[in-house]
């Protein structure tokens, strides 16, 4: 009997704590940010924003795609004021559902027009470049291809890892469809399948497999190998850049938007402008090895400067959002 009393008391106490915690967790005045960036990377930046501006911030970290789906489900009741995703695809999905508000010209002016939505619903914050990561014990530098299109050649048969379900890979395919044409993209995907390209879960899994030597090379974002080498400088994985202007060297922006229906437009834009300030942009360059997309902040040591990259240009930002078409194309090629 005594034991039961203890159990009941525990439950009651726990319920009280729960109610207390839930009461103070919901701060209606705070700026609510949903972000697909991780706390490990951008946590310090958000703390700094609160300190500098006095604006309280509620951050929800999560998967870029899942958070976009959550905002879609929440609709006009969304608590989110800002959406800051990893991939233009997810942002374009929200834009397509009319869930993003246009940004003011002041904010748009901060960014190179190549990295913003023509309709002004998102701006690029920082860029990640597509590269070919390779195992320097297994592959000689001279054997590396100039173009991503070379990877369908017989000499790369079974040698290349890629992540067909990953947002960055899909963004890369979307850009290829826009810039090189639907047929070229289809042909390349089918060529990669015929060439026994090896599917992996994500960028991490590819870099890990390449560093073990399970697969000699793989298509990833440039950032991951920097992290792997920071944790273990002895790894044989290296980044290879495709030739200037090759679609394989696409720079993919992470992008920020104001969620439609927010009652804190001013604070939301202030936050996005903060991300584009020189201070924040320098943080991306030095702490996250990413490309600053505003001001003249140089890239991190060891990362080639953006203006020497000559990434392919001319893609229409709004067309980068046709993830449905890209998903179908990848599936039809048999890569899912």
């Amino acid at each position, binding site marked *: 009997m005594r034991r039961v009393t203890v159990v009941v008391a525990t439950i009651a106490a726990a319920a009280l704590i729960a109610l207390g915690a839930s009461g103070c967790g919901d701060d209606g005045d*705070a700026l609510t940010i949903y972000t697909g960036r*991780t706390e490990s990377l951008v946590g310090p930046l958000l703390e700094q924003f609160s300190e500098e501006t006095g604006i309280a911030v509620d951050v929800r970290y999560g998967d870029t795609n899942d958070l976009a789906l959550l905002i879609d489900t929440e609709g006009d*009741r969304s608590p989110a004021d800002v959406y800051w995703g990893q991939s233009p695809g997810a942002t374009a999905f929200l834009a397509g559902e009319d869930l993003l508000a246009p940004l003011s010209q002041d904010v748009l002016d901060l960014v190179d027009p190549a990295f913003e939505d023509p309709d002004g619903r998102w701006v690029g914050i920082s860029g990640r470049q597509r590269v070919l990561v390779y195992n320097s014990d297994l592959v000689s530098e001279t054997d590396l291809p100039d173009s991503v299109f070379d990877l369908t050649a017989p000499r790369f048969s079974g040698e290349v890892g890629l992540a067909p379900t990953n947002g960055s890979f899909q963004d890369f395919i979307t850009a290829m469809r826009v810039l090189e044409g639907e047929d070229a993209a289809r042909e390349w995907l089918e060529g990669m399948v015929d060439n026994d390209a090896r599917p992996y879960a994500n960028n991490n*899994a590819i870099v890990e497999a390449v560093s*073990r030597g399970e697969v000699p090379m793989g298509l990833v974002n440039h950032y991951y190998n920097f992290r792997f080498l920071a944790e273990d400088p002895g790894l044989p994985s290296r980044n290879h850049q495709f030739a200037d202007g090759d679609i394989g060297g696409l720079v993919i922006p992470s992008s920020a938007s104001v969620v439609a229906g927010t009652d804190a437009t001013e604070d939301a834009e202030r936050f996005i402008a903060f991300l584009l300030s020189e201070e924040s942009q320098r943080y991306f360059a030095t702490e996250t090895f990413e490309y600053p997309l505003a001001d003249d902040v140089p890239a991190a040591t060891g990362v080639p400067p953006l203006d020497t990259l000559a990434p392919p240009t001319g893609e229409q930002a709004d067309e980068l959002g046709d993830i449905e078409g890209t998903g179908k194309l990848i599936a039809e090629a048999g890569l899912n």
Partner: protein
Amino acid sequence: MTTARVDPRGIGLRIVVVLLAVPFAAPLAYLLVRTIDEGGFWEVAGDAALLGPLARSLGLATAVALATAVVGTAAAWLVTRTDLPGRRALRLLLPLPLVLPSFIGAFALIAAFARGGLLERILGPLGVGTLPQVDGFAGAFTVLTLLTYPYVYLPVAARLRQLSPSMEESARLLGSGPLETFRTVVLPQTRAAIAAGGLLVFLYVIADFGAVQLLRYDTLTRAIYSNRLVDPPVAAALSLALGLLAIVVVVGQRSVAGPVRSDVRREGGALVVGLGPWRLPALGFVGGLLTLALVAPVAVLGYWAVRGAAEGSSRPSSLIGNPERLIEPALNTSLASGLAAIVAVGVVLPVAFLRGRHGGRLGSVADALITGGFALPGIVIALALAFWTLNSPGAVGALYQTLPLLVGAYALHFGALALGPARVAVTGVPRALDDAARTLGRGRLSRLLSVDLPLMAPGLAAGAGLVLLSAMKELPVTLLLAPAGFPTLATRVWSAAEDAFWADASFAALVLVALSGVLTWLLVVRREREFS
């Protein structure tokens, strides 16, 4: 017989069960609304291209369920009934692989055992050649078996602790060997617990995404995930199909498994089967299982933590350099998952009573709904609850992204884990004892508190333990529905691993394993002892 037993007050129980079962219908109802809204269910359901993923899901789930049934049952019997050396410590360690989130557990196992991995580097100088590639069916089967056998181990161990060893003693006295005794006496009495655990494994594997994604085995869940943003109607239709499939499997399994037998509780001390010459092989089996499922991933995580410690600790957001950043997540994890375990057991108990004592269709429906909630991917549960909460009036809508909603979501997602053991526990209480208490004039509540609950305690503790360990590592629901600024250990692990901060991710994962060990001891192991 059954009708004579129906308590007129079973009506009250039925009303309670209906009220409790309604939230469990929320995810399927949401999928139904979405699918009717968007259409296309029949095109998706009739798409031949999906037969492959469907067959792979079913095949993998069946194979893993069978393997865990064997491994989990053998381990449970060895540590509860024999003179296996170190069985006390093993009882604490054996449930722990469950707490490794599959995205980090599978990743660590790949890094350890795959071609060119850590094991190969260690064994290389000893002349061992290349290890096979870990992927596809064999890889997914091995990794999932190692990560999910506790779903069988915990309920079967609980069942064995509840069972009288007198029949085993008699069998042994009559000259049966340990194996013969196990087959003729132990197996029939634990069959329901094994089947319940195997079903949980089956449903877990069907819903798993982390492991199959990393091991490149193309199941139905991968199709759901890769379509969720690209083609949401297809993802919704596939999820609905998955949920309905799970319900069919649950109903089918329940009817095949048949009723659970009620047994007299043991009196006197525990029976200890002398393993004799089998002691070493038995220890080798349990030790090998733990080495692969727990020691290996933990060793890899430890290696990563140490390797990256020097580099990572200078960053302001480093977890290794600032371990105090894990205190709040550890408290949040304990609070949310502890509450979820208590709530889940409380919610499924009436259903277990209805099923065990009264039978009938209502109990079966509630049972199938609760169990089906475990087979849906977390992202579906999260979006469904977001949808219903925000579309509800005032008080309910205000719960959105608060702790009560998070705990409720855990209980909804993991209620199945408590229900199986609770059913076995309810039917394991001898009716004669309950009847005797009634004859002595004890009321229903008094009987529940003084007879039923104490006898059911090991089973309920096992169920609570399963919910606890699963909620501790839960990710998609936590990320979407937790209160703002409510980091858990699992979200810290994820955040670090997502951007390849392996030292931080490993350190947080090790804290998660350690915390789960402490909580398992407090809530499950110690409690088992107290009641036995």
